[in-house]
């Protein structure tokens, strides 16, 4: 069980801001592969990982970091603050 959050156009493409996912995925990359199988909205949102960022428990991370113990994962495009 992991909370998955989406922001900006990732949120818009998937059509929801957050969901709880039952998964045994070892990494964000594995989780994405599972999600893409579920619906084409995910395939659209995750088509180009180079244009995406991932945060694990609210810290910027990478797609191959272990998800073990992580309670919240977020996917979003590069930030545009300031």
């Amino acid at each position, binding site marked *: 069980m992991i909370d998955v959050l989406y*922001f900006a156009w990732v949120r818009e493409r998937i059509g929801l801001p957050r969901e709880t996912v039952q998964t045994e995925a070892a990494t964000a990359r594995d989780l994405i592969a599972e999600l893409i199988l579920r619906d084409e909205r995910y395939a659209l949102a995750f088509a180009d990982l180079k244009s995406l960022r991932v*945060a694990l428990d609210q810290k910027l991370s990478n797609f191959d970091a272990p998800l073990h113990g992580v309670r919240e994962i977020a996917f*979003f*495009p*590069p*930030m*545009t*603050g*300031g």
Partner: protein
Amino acid sequence: MRLSVQPQPFDLGAESNAFAAQANRAGAIVTFTGIVRNTDGALIGMEIEHYPGMTEVAIAAIMDTAMARWSLTDALVIHRHGSLAPGEAIMMVATAAPHRAAAFAAAEFLMDYLKSRAPFWKKEVGENGAEWVAALHDDEQSLARW
């Protein structure tokens, strides 16, 4: 040191004066204010989305780094989210230090990190629809100087 992530407008003048009043050991204060720009009149407004929780933690970490690295006497970050109109202030930073070089460097550092490492996303709303603002390669590059 103060950090506020808020939907409400803020008063640049009042914030600057309050910051300066506290900065009694400083000789130099720098402020930066980012404004919703509308060069050609086509922009209706801006929507700013953020990641509640992570935003505050990420910015606080950036501020701690700046305070230590440039021996600042004080620092301030205010960043809005939600709906903004053209001409409205999006955010401001302020830094106070004994000398000007440190105050300038720390303010630029904070801005570079806020641009690329704080979880905000801007969407420009125009007459022909809305579009997410793309991150600039330059902004990512400018992080490399610190």
